[in-house]
């Protein structure tokens, strides 16, 4: 019953999201037929192209047409962007960019945040602590696009260590694909890692003040064991919540970084679809993004009990 309710709520959300996107796009000025014909458009041709694309029908009919297609598993075809390609295929081809990019970014930010945050918390007010706090303040203030451009200039162009943008297909060149994601993932990781460092530090400080830490120390455990096994484990509950939210944001599209590094991810796909008023593609892209986010949320909700035994049995 609980699962059914959850599933029902997810489907209702998806329906609402799709209806909202559709309405917003419908009332947005601009017309895919106009974009297709450009400056050479004559009224007669416009009418023909609009009819070919099914844009001459009333809004409710267009939405129903789309929705009934989705129910049959058909997300329609792109109107402008590589016309003729199925929306499902375009959206699915963006996922192997967006998902690993988001995962790698969060991975790197945790890699940065956990040791730094724990270190800072172990000697609050110390020199290391203030250094970490200053660094995280700096990391937070650097805009991603600027950092991206700088990283491309130095690491890719001057030093030639990594590709300056674009990404080969995983199956064609898996190594090259991973390399292409490294720099953008690091750029995304920096500000997120900076936030996480502060979260880790705060959570650790709180954990280190708990009674069980005193007990652990009293048992004569080494400081390393106390921090890594007892304090960190408890602090991770808070950290994983924030990291989860960050991951969700990244899945919805790391648009700026995708644009700077020319990565064919979901954010860029949706942006170009909006600029081209490619209704089915925008619908499909947003739908996929929303579904992804909900699935992840669901997954995160079910992992809390694994990290924190206290939550077990409550649900």
């Amino acid at each position, binding site marked *: 019953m609980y699962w059914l309710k959850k599933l029902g709520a997810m489907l209702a959300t998806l329906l609402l999201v799709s209806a909202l996107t559709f309405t917003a796009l419908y009332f947005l000025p601009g017309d895919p037929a106009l*974009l297709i014909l450009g400056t050479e*458009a004559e009224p007669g*041709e416009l009418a023909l192209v609009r009819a070919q694309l099914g844009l001459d029908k009333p809004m409710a009919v267009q939405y129903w047409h789309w929705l009934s297609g989705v129910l049959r598993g058909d997300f329609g075809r792109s109107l402008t962007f590589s*016309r003729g390609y199925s929306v499902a295929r375009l959206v699915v*081809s963006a996922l192997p960019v967006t998902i690993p990019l988001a995962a790698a970014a969060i991975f790197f930010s945790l890699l940065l945040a956990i040791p730094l945050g724990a270190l800072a918390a172990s000697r609050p007010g110390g020199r290391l602590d203030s250094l970490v706090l200053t660094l995280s303040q700096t990391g937070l203030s650097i805009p991603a696009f600027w950092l991206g451009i700088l990283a491309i200039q130095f690491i890719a162009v001057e030093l030639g260590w990594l590709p300056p943008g674009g990404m080969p297909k995983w199956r064609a060149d898996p190594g090259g694909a991973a390399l292409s994601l490294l720099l953008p993932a690091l750029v995304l990781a920096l500000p997120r890692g900076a936030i996480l460092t502060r979260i880790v530090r705060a959570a650790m400080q709180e954990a280190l003040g708990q009674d069980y830490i005193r007990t652990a120390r009293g048992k004569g455990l080494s400081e390393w064991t106390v921090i890594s096994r007892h304090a960190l484990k408890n602090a991770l509950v808070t950290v994983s919540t924030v990291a989860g939210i960050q991951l969700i944001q990244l899945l919805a599209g790391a648009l700026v970084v995708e*644009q*700077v590094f020319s990565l064919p991810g979901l954010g860029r796909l949706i942006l170009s679809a909006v600029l081209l008023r490619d209704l089915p593609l925008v619908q499909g892209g947003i739908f996929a993004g929303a579904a992804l986010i909900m699935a992840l949320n669901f997954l995160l909700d079910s992992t809390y009990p694994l990290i924190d035994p206290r939550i077990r049995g409550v649900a």
Partner: protein
Amino acid sequence: MQKLFGLFLAVILLAGCSPQAAGSELVVAIPTDPDGFHPHQSVAAASAEIAFNLFEGLVKAAPDGSIIPALAEEWEISPDGLTYTFTLRQGVKFHNGRNLTPEDVVYCLTRLADPDLSPKARDYTGVQRIAAQGNQVVITLAQPDAVFLALLTEFGASIYPKEVEGELSTKPIGTGPFTLSAWEPGDSLTLAKFPQYWNPQLPKTDKIILKIIPEPTTMVNSLLTGHVDLIPRLEPDYLHQVEGKSTLQIIDSPMNLVQLLAINNAVAPFDDLRVRQALNYAVNREEIIQGAAWGKGTPIGSNLTPAMGAWYKDLTAQYPYNPEKAKELLAQAGYPDGFSTTMYLPAPYPLHRNAGEIIAAQLEKVGIKVRIKVIEWADWLEQVNRDRDYELTVVGLTGRIDPHTMLNRYQSQSGRNISYFASPEYDELLVRGLAETDHEARIEMYQRLQTILAEHAANVFIMDPSQIAVMGRDIQGWSNYPVYVLDLAPLSRTE
């Protein structure tokens, strides 16, 4: 977590030993995906420039703007200009292995001219009959149409085998020097040499990868790091990043694009000829070319560019830069203190945006206050291009190889006449120009049309921006066309 990191490192290390592809290969950067490859449906310039390498029509355009044989080895036009007889080249094969037949030509061109199926049919309303006759195709027109042959060079008039009709958009099958071997939307298109191409000399390279890179900075960086061999169209704003590099060559040539400050002739105060002339005197073209195009452009005085050869008439002397004269004309028109107006600029085109900003500053000097509104391309097309609800705008009009298709947008009733230009003499001359079969007489008429546009100050015609191609020094075979195509077949890398 350590394991995960180790895995990531391992994947990265693997990258060092990716396999080398056999055969010659070039990587060309393009900014966007095509909008499909059905010759009758696709209308984006991005599609036509790639399709030039996949498809052919009966005839095609040469780099000098002349019309040369393609699938038709030769053709004959009857003295009355009504009957065109094309003799097909022997032994031409489609990419699916089938031989080209006259029936394929009849099928494709008939469908192209059908207004119920093809958005491009309006150009072919004069076609009366298309018939196969042995190895020939005979096309009969209702009245002489001097543009007809030029139209047959365009992407729309490509010939494809009838049996692939349904899938053509994503799986183009033509007779061109390359086949489309892969298309990953948003990522790349891969063109492979078609070994049975009728001209065994072409193409020179086995495989060409067209990499889609929307960001000009990334495009330039990819070229600098050797991930890309050639950028066919570089935004002038990025020129300084590639200039003076010993490994690169920069080839700039006329693009045949009419960049103009379009004026809505139907609204006050621009319905007054003196005001429009004042704008023409107030605009300093040289400054725009330097400021917006980094010096890479040719000033123009009417709606054709020097790339059009004999058709072009140089009218740049009609309105030399003269702000005093502009003020005088404004005063005569009743605006001694100038006036305020709005200029819409299309966001995705930095060249037009920059030009618009420079123009606004120039107009300010003669007392015209310009409020600039930068709008999205979709909004521009709707508000300015379709509804003509604007006063001033800066845009570029793509060149064709025949002057008629460039100039007929100023016909008073034309759906593309965004300036609301109206002149009975102009309309009448357009009709006569189309029917004229004598080449010299026709040239004279089209030069007169350009003069009328300039005399009436229909718009401020600014420049033909140069197409800036940047490529490695080892790349040869680049050729520039006065139409929007990308000729990949002659390109190769010197060893």
